[in-house]
């Protein structure tokens, strides 16, 4: 069979015979990817204004929306604590806001169980803008009009970035469930 089509006995997760997905990878990829996304903005030097949208939060939203039920409801607190170590916000702001975001999505999901991409994007957009505003207030600095103005591109970028993040989550999910382990 493989002589005619090398992918005959495989699907998007790889070969089906004799293989299974690795449980370690299946459990850890969502958490690791969100943590890496929290660290990435640190490497950039932003001396003038906040440049990068909150990548960690966007990826958390992505995992929560694209794969509902994968992250437990309480996952916002430990992941937020990790984000707080690097984000420059006062410690505790992401723990609070990420937990609230997870609860909010859960409530929205029970209210509107049938959702599509556009509704997901709308929800994510509203949440990201709310998060952006809340981080401004919680940053410990007085909020001025100039500060709002320079931070505005960050909010717009975050909204526009959600579809890309959702696609990224989908490909990460394929990697997560890929049949990497050989059954002898």
């Amino acid at each position: 069979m493989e002589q005619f089509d090398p992918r005959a006995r495989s699907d998007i997760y790889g070969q089906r015979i004799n293989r299974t997905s690795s449980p370690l990878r299946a459990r850890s990829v969502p958490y690791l990817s969100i943590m890496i996304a929290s660290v990435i903005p640190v490497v950039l030097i932003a001396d003038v204004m906040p440049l990068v949208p909150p990548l960690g939060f966007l990826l958390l939203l992505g995992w929560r929306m694209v794969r509902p039920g994968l992250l437990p409801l309480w996952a916002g607190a430990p992941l937020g604590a990790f984000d707080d170590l690097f984000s420059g916000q006062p410690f505790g702001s992401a723990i609070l806001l990420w937990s609230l975001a997870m609860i909010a999505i859960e409530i929205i999901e029970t209210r509107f169980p049938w959702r599509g991409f556009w509704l997901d994007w709308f929800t994510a957009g509203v949440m990201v803008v709310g998060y952006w505003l809340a981080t401004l207030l919680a940053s410990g600095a007085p909020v001025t009009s100039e500060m709002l103005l320079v931070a505005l591109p960050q909010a717009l970028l975050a909204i526009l970035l959600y579809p890309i993040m959702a696609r990224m989550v989908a490909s990460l999910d394929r990697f997560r469930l890929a049949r990497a382990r050989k059954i002898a």
Partner: protein
Amino acid sequence: MAPPSSRRSGFSRKAQYSLFTGYLLAGAGALLGSALLMLSLWQPSAFAPLRGGASDVVTPAGTVGAVARTETQGFFASIGGYFNAGSQNAALRDEMEIARVRLAEADAVRAENRRLKSLLNLKDSEVKPVSIARLVGSTATSTRRHAYLSAGANNGVTPGMPVISERGVIGRVLETGRNSARVLLLTDSESVLPVRRAKDDVIAFAEGRGDGLLRVRLVNLGINPLKIGDLMVTSGAGGYYRPGVAVAVISKITEDGGIARLVAEPAATNFVAVEPIHQAAAVAVLRGENSLGTPEGAANAEQQPSSAMPTASAAADDR
């Protein structure tokens, strides 16, 4: 996509309990987060060791990024250089001639300075940097403007030390880890720096606005003597910075001072020097008085300094 049906609890007691526990844990997480947020807004340095350890882990990756950044900047600059090489060459030649003359004049002034200082028995003490390091990262998602430095407590860096590039002031060390430190940049909205005009003694405070510019507020209000293009340098008040380091250039005049642009942009620097605190004794005294709640540090002028001076001197504590 509808959520998996397994998450509807139905009549299953187990499912109902697990759903309830999930909400309970998430609510507890939110409460814990708000308590920690209150604590860290009240005591900003409470979690400094935790953050220091975290930044120690990330710093090596940041160093690679910093090297790549400076090299790419050089690469693009050298490509751009080819396009207007001829005219630039001529202009530079002219500038060089003038600069040579000025240099000779400066030598004469320096010699005279030395002679006058020796008459007054003043000693010129060369400031030796504590450490030379790279800026390896920043808090790019937050509205706070902090940067990470690739040197920490192991290199002798302590909180409060000024960070200076070859062009001018970058900021001040806020927290230290073992091999990394967190720097409060001048553009942060909590940063206050006592400055004076380079050519005379008009003193002011340079505060970060949070949008990359500095607000220069004059100490003595009245007719605003500032002009666009004036260079502001550190005045040495407060004890953290040595006097005479370039800070910012005035780009706009306002009622009580001006808006200024930074001289030393952190993103464009390669290496920065961490210098010792200029007058550690003065800083300690001001800090002690501030903690006792008697802001007597600089009550010699009218209204402005008495309120702003302790802020400036103890700005390492309250971020």
